């Protein structure tokens, strides 16, 4: 693979761009959860958000490392990373369930809604041109980074 292309990391760009964009929506959702489910709901929503962003960022970092290393490493990092990330998510939630603030419903809603919502939103900013893969920074009418 051409090193000039591989050295760029579109996965990392996408994941961190999603995290940046979610900062606008996240506080509003935490406040709304606080109104609906109380302090426990707000904290559980915050935990769900951290899990989703952490999961995406971990996937991106692992894939970027795998792509830099070799195709075999990419396959291993992606599939192995999938299993490890699911286990870590389950471990964190099982640990958090012992805490007094834990509320399963806002946590569940936050995990599914933020994962799918962030991905769907990010698709608007993705470029699939050969010359400029990854984030579309030059698209007219879109914000410039």
């Amino acid at each position, binding site marked *: 693979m*051409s090193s000039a292309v591989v050295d760029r990391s*579109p996965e990392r760009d996408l994941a961190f761009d999603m995290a940046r964009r979610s900062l606008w929506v996240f506080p509003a959702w935490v406040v709304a959860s606080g109104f609906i489910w109380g302090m426990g709901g707000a904290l559980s929503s915050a935990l769900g958000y951290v899990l989703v962003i952490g999961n995406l960022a971990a996937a991106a970092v692992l894939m970027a490392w795998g792509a830099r290393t070799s195709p075999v490493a990419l*396959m291993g990092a992606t599939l192995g990373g*999938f*299993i490890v990330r699911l286990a870590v998510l389950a471990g964190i939630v099982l640990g958090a369930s012992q805490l007094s603030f834990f509320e*399963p419903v806002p946590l569940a809603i936050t995990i*599914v809604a933020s994962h799918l919502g962030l991905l769907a939103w*990010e698709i608007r900013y993705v470029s699939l*041109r*050969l010359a400029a893969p990854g984030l579309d920074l030059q698209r007219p009418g879109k914000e410039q980074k």
Partner: protein
Amino acid sequence: MDLLAQADTAVDGLKALGAGLGYGLAAIGPGVGIGLVVGNAITAMARQPESAGMVRTTMFLGIAFTEALALIGFVVFILLNFT
């Protein structure tokens, strides 16, 4: 009274069993899907190295969408176990 307590314990046990099985089963499909996505992405990058950036962008989004299925299984696990 004893019988009711035993029934409660059995229901709790079955819920935990269902949650664990559901999470495990929900992870199988995305695992297969991610394997297909990555395998085909590697083939595409090997055939046309100059398109690696574009392929990796598509691959990351494909994997993230596929993983949403596993996360839905995870959410079912949370709801069955803790509500």
